[in-house]
């Protein structure tokens, strides 16, 4: 069993705080993705779990044992680095077997486990090559092979795909997912790419400025963002946020126009409250070209400022209450700038955030 627990974990470099007391419980065999913009403390958190950074305060437990003062080698974890960190002076076979050799395994055992790992990752034909003779994707696979060969309690991935081109990244993403289904080990995965987070994670941890903003399954984080930061960070293109005031039981936008308060949020708002109306581009569509046509909605006549056709859909830039918003048109229809269309806002999927705190009115 290897659950990983962080309790009030703090990291400071001198007086500068990088991670400000985060709590997180990762279950056995769970795939958790730490996601956030550069400098949010996600890599530092991962490195503290690995033992590569000192922990300034709080506790890190792996499998119930406090590991704060254990060196990396005593934590029984393995790690895949962003730059692969393959040993350049060893061939693939030696790279894979290095950890086993250090652990004092017998040559026969090493050979057996290296071939098993090589088989899982399709590395068998490459065993005699050096890292310099491998492509980016192959190096990535060797790095993963080196991680699985030791049969650790947990895998730590530090932005493993960010050095690959877009196509390869998609392939490797699928391979990591498959790998996790095969070896069923606890995984902590750091990325700044929200697509990786959404597709790989059992649970996503969204981090910002050394704090955890929200923890939840990908669908929870996508459908019920707790803060405007999560709302705009997860999902592409990002959620539109429109400043508004609750007036007479409706959401009044800055130009005075109103839309009804979504039913499910009715109990959470008070008269005169300053809010931000959050609505994803997918939920603003020309009538007849949207995702959902039923349920509560508001209709608005809007002028297209710019359209980016993407084949089966188009991204439309337009303005609501003087603010630029992005909308989506589903279907192969060409839209011209300047064209005026009737749009429908799917309000059952809209969000309201407290303008002062940036938190969802449901959470306030």
């Amino acid at each position, binding site marked *: 069993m290897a659950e990983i627990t962080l309790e009030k974990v703090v990291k400071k470099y001198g007086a500068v705080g990088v991670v400000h007391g985060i709590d997180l419980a990762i279950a056995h065999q769970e795939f958790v993705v730490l996601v956030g913009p550069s400098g949010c403390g996600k890599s530092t958190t991962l490195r503290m779990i690995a033992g590569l950074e000192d922990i300034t305060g709080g506790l890190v437990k792996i499998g119930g044992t406090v590991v704060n003062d254990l060196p990396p080698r005593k934590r029984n974890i393995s*790690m895949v680095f962003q730059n692969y960190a393959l040993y350049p002076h060893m061939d693939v076979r030696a790279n894979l077997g*290095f950890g086993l050799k250090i652990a004092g395994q017998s040559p026969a055992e090493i050979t057996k486990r290296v071939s098993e790992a090589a088989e899982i990752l399709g590395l068998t034909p490459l065993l005699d090559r050096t890292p310099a003779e491998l492509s980016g994707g192959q190096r990535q696979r060797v790095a993963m092979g*080196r991680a699985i060969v030791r049969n650790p309690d947990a895998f730590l991935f530090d932005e493993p795909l960010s050095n690959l081109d877009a196509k390869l990244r998609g392939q490797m993403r699928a391979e990591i997912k498959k790998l996790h289904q095969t070896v069923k080990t606890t995984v902590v995965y750091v990325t700044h790419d929200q697509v990786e987070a959404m597709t790989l994670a059992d649970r996503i941890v969204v981090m910002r400025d050394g704090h955890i903003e929200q923890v939840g399954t990908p669908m929870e984080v996508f459908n019920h963002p707790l803060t405007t930061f999560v709302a705009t960070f997860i999902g592409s293109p990002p959620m539109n946020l429109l400043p508004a005031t609750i007036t007479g039981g409706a959401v009044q936008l800055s130009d005075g126009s109103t839309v009804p308060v979504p039913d499910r949020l009715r109990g959470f708002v008070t008269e005169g409250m300053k809010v931000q109306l959050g609505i994803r581009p997918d939920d603003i569509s020309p009538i007849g070209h949207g995702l959902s046509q039923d349920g509560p909605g508001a209709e608005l006549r809007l002028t297209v400022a710019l359209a980016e056709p993407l084949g089966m859909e188009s991204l439309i830039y337009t303005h609501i209450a003087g603010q630029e918003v992005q909308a989506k048109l589903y279907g192969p229809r060409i839209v011209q700038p300047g064209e005026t269309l009737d749009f429908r806002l799917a309000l059952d999927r809209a969000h309201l955030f407290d303008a002062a705190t940036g938190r969802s009115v449901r959470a306030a």
Partner: protein
Amino acid sequence: MSATVESQGSKRLKAIGLWLATFLLMLVMCVPGLWVMLSGFRPNREILAKPPIWVPQELTLDNFGKIFGWGAEQIAIPVPAYFTNSLIIALTSTLIALGVGMAGGYAFARFRFRAKGALFLGLMLFRTVPGIALSLPIFMIWSRLGLIDTKLGLIIVYVSLNVPFTIWLIDGFFRQIPLSLSEAAQVDGCTRWQAFWKIEFPLARSGIASAGVFAFLTSWNEFALASQLTRSTDSKTLPVGLLDFTAQFTIDWAGMCAMAVIIIIPALILTFIVQKHLIAGLTFGGVKG
């Protein structure tokens, strides 16, 4: 048609010109050395002949015989002792300078500590002081400490001359090795020490080898300080020993040149063995200062 012939011709002319220039340059650089080596194998009378004999008439090993005391004719210069001194002093000081250089270079490349920049700058500034400028103070201190005419005295001097350079060169090499390699090794089960010896050291090997060769050659060839600090066969090194061929009225050119050959050969062999590392080392490590 004629244009291509012409351009081919001019290309050829250019190649010949370049080749000739290289040849002349190499000639200027190599002739003194070659002349010394050649003279080591010629009898004294031929070297001193007037008008000069350009093409050697006879080659002989007598000069070496004289030095090492094989032949009938012997000279009273204890070359084997000097050779042993040189070897002991150069090897010991190189090994120490390499050890300190590796520890220091690794520390500067990998760790953060107080006054790191100032310390590094200080080392480099120390390196800019010409060794001979220090000869008088060193002489005075060494005479108080009883280190004059000891191998230890010279070893200490050479270590301190070489350490700034070895630290600087080796630091550059360790900097080029991504930190994540050592981290990966530690996650893979190594102690920091094991990670160093199994991963970082093999990768920095060419840099360490170049630093070692430079340190060895500096100690092996050094004359100015050695001539001040040595007196007898206890500590005199080969370059200082060359002076023994200068008597009051005569200079034994043949013997001196033969001894010069003995000094040059180990340096040549060493450079030849590590030249692959050396070239890789100087270009690779040199990129990052």
